[in-house]
């Protein structure tokens, strides 16, 4: 294809040092044609992910087409002491796939085949570059259900989901990616390929090593295949939209719903700033005058769904909801959920730079957290949009700013730091689902403490003593 492949050295090409270019020629020889990219025009688009203001141009990009390609790249990287950052679709929000200095990007977007749907054993085997959406659709076509549905599911890869242990809108009832991983194929930093886990529902042979790689953010190994658990499709679903006059009241409603206990499948929250941005894009009829809305879904047996929707509505009203309505049709419910998924990107309509945090607290602390965040933003005179998976206690305060305004950025950074401290005070975590990567690395010791940091470092060193895989992410080795 002409536009896709045509290259000519343009201005901006750096002469790589002789040894590096000789090494790249070796790499070229062991890979299928067309899978190694070295021209600036090809590299620039791989120098960032979904995170604001983080950028670094890779030495080269490899588009692996098989586990064999991945293993070849890792062995080559070892011989040439070149760092490797694995990338799925680059939607990560912690800078996890932004290349390490002088390193390769190993992109798995072409490693995208569904290998098996095992109907009798309710599981599915896929290569790591398959998108979450394709997994969900394949499960659906087999009459089954794959619940984790991150906002980015249209394009995020299953490998990226596993590497970040991503959550989604249904985490409250169905859990996160980890709860669906039965097995993984992983290429280790020494170039060896291992299979971890099995199709057995119970399996305690050895340590649960697959779990070590779930949420490992590309620092321990490259995930090449994923075996996923599927569940039966829920028979019915109900959706409720409740409107509130304050953030704290909405948060209080969530805490009371959980304490009742009702465990609906979705309890999503949007504040006024976010409501307006989302409505501006999606036009699904969100109430523009509300301070906050809760989008709640229950699924399962029709009678149970009815009952849960009724309790959610009455609790919302107890917490002074200014309006509650049920979606009239499945299509309307789907539109609302789809609109909610666009929240983060839609906020980018407001200011040029969107910096999103991922703080999470025990659910009875939600009201306290959102009240603190609003106060912090006001004190530093910065604009924040707040939304999140409230049912999981997971809040995404999104600071809306302009990276070219140094003074404002300074205020934003102070507000972020205070938000993190407030979260830790409330017994929370600095990241519920996006991972640490580069963006939250400096806050990690504050949460984990010295002993856990040491344990973390020793696990990393044991698996990757040469520090080849995604160096500088999560932690810096001494």
């Amino acid at each position, binding site marked *: 294809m002409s536009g896709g492949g045509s290259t000519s050295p343009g201005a901006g090409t750096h002469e790589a040092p002789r040894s590096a270019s000789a090494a790249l020629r070796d790499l070229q020889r062991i890979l299928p044609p067309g899978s190694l990219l070295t*021209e600036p025009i090809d590299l*620039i688009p791989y120098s960032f992910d979904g995170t604001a203001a983080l950028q670094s141009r890779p030495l080269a990009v490899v588009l692996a087409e098989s586990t064999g390609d991945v293993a070849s790249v890792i062995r080559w990287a070892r011989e040439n002491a070149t760092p490797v950052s694995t990338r799925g679709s680059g*939607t990560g929000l912690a800078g996890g796939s932004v290349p390490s200095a002088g390193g390769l990007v190993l992109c798995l977007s072409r490693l995208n085949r569904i290998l098996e749907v095992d109907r009798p054993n309710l599981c599915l085997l896929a290569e790591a570059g398959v998108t979450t959406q394709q997994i969900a659709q394949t499960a659906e076509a087999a009459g089954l259900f794959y619940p984790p549905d991150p906002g980015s599911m249209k394009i995020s890869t299953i490998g990226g989901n596993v590497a970040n242990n991503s959550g989604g809108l249904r985490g409250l009832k169905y859990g996160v990616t980890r709860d669906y991983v039965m097995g993984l194929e992983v290429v280790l930093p020494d170039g060896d390929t291992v299979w971890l886990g099995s199709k057995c529902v119970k399996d305690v042979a050895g340590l649960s090593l697959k779990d070590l790689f779930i949420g490992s953010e590309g620092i321990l190994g490259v995930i090449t295949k994923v075996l996923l658990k599927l569940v039966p499709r829920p028979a019915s679903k109900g959706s409720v939209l409740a409107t509130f006059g304050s953030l704290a009241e909405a948060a209080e409603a969530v805490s009371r719903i959980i304490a009742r206990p009702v465990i609906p499948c979705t309890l999503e929250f949007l504040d006024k700033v976010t409501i307006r941005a989302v409505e501006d894009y999606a036009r699904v009829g969100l109430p523009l005058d509300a301070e906050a809305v809760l989008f709640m879904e229950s699924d399962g047996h029709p009678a149970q769904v009815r009952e849960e929707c009724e309790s959610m509505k009455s609790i919302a009203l107890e917490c002074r909801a200014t309006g509650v309505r049920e979606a009239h049709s499945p299509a309307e419910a789907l539109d609302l959920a789809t609109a909610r998924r666009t929240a983060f990107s839609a906020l980018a309509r407001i200011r040029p730079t969107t910096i999103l945090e991922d703080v999470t607290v025990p659910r009875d602390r939600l009201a306290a957290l959102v009240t603190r965040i609003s106060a912090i933003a006001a004190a530093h005179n910065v604009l924040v949009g707040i939304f999140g998976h409230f049912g999981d206690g997971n809040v995404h305060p999104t600071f809306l700013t302009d990276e070219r305004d140094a003074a404002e950025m300074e205020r934003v950074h102070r507000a972020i730091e205070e938000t993190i401290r407030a979260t830790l005070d409330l017994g929370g975590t600095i990241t519920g689902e996006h991972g640490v990567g580069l963006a939250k690395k400096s806050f990690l010791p504050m949460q984990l403490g010295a002993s856990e940091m040491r344990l973390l470092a020793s696990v990393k060193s044991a698996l990757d003593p040469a520090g080849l895989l995604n160096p500088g992410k999560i932690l810096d080795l001494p």
Partner: protein
Amino acid sequence: MDYSILQQCMHCGMCLPTCPTYDHTKLERNSPRGRIALMRAVADGAFEMNYAFAGEMSFCLGCLACETACPAGVRYADLFESARADIEQAGLLAQPERTFWRWITLRTLFTHPRLLRWTGLGLRWWQQSGLQDLFRSAGLVRFLPATLRDLEPLAPEVRTAFSDALIPPVLPPQNAPQRFRVALLTGCMQDLILSEVNRDTAGVLAENGCEVVTPALQPCCGSIHAHNGEPALAMQQARRLIDLFDPAGFDAIISNAGGCGSHLKKFSHLLADDPRYAERARAWDSKVKDIHEWLVEIDFRKPTAAGTPTPCRATYHDSCHLCHGQKITSQPRTILRAIPGLELVELPEANWCCGSAGVYNITQPEMASRLKDRKCAHIEQTNCDLVATANPGCHLQLEAGLDSPQSPFVIHPVSLLAAAYRNENP
């Protein structure tokens, strides 16, 4: 390039799965996010435009699926047009043959409507005289350059009558009292090769109480110039059109071609810095309506007769610049559903580009034909009798791909409505 639009892209990747070129190669540079990153690198001085960059912008279909998908509201069309203009300005793609063809088409044919019609006449004579068949059977096609040879069978059949022979300059309302006065834009391609669509549009408008004003000779709207890096010519064409149709004199200015309409609605942006035209251009934008949009807005009369032999199964292909450029998706379907005896079957991937994309067939034949095949396979699978679409480029592309005798035939939704009205009083 407008830096604030570049900055608005926050790299979320939500547009990637809707981009046909990314879908095919899975390369980030072939995606909207990648292309925007390259444009931003150019604006930041981190990368200098080169031949490969020009190639990348020509590989982009300009289908604008990414604009529909983008929650952040990035106006990709603006970025894409200015990138192409910068490339032309820098002469990155200049070679004598290409410059000659651009001169013939963009500077000469598509700025001189009379010349364009004469060319059409020449082409019509060529097709009718039997010379075309002789040329083909004698194998003379071999002497054409490769791209022209591949395109020769695609050369559209020129209609025996152009719009001016089919539509009077002023058509009064038919069978209805006058409610509106509208102008009808006949387009270039539509006029030469699908002039009956213009006739049907005028007829349908008249049936709905519109007095239809259709000057015999109309300047090209300039979309072909804007998309191909010639903003100055695009502005010139816009001024000519505004001069010809004073927006104050009409309730609506009607376009029936998705590609033209999407451009026609942006004259205020194009002429923003022209003190003599800026205000009229704003008035113009507010008057331009796609025919389907207008018919639904004025609550068109539902026909009582069928437009085709019944029962008839029909499907609908969304032209990119109608659905992504103008966000018009429900109105054409509403019109089709209103026709008695016609069952509308939803087309899988209805809003995925068919590969026609202006001159894309010529500049990127391989990708264009891949997209054509993908589209036509979906159409064939619906087992429909016909496929409706509302853009001449798409129309020709589908006709080229649906070439077996059993294939559905291609038609403009308005032609079906016109036929239904005609059948009411046989």
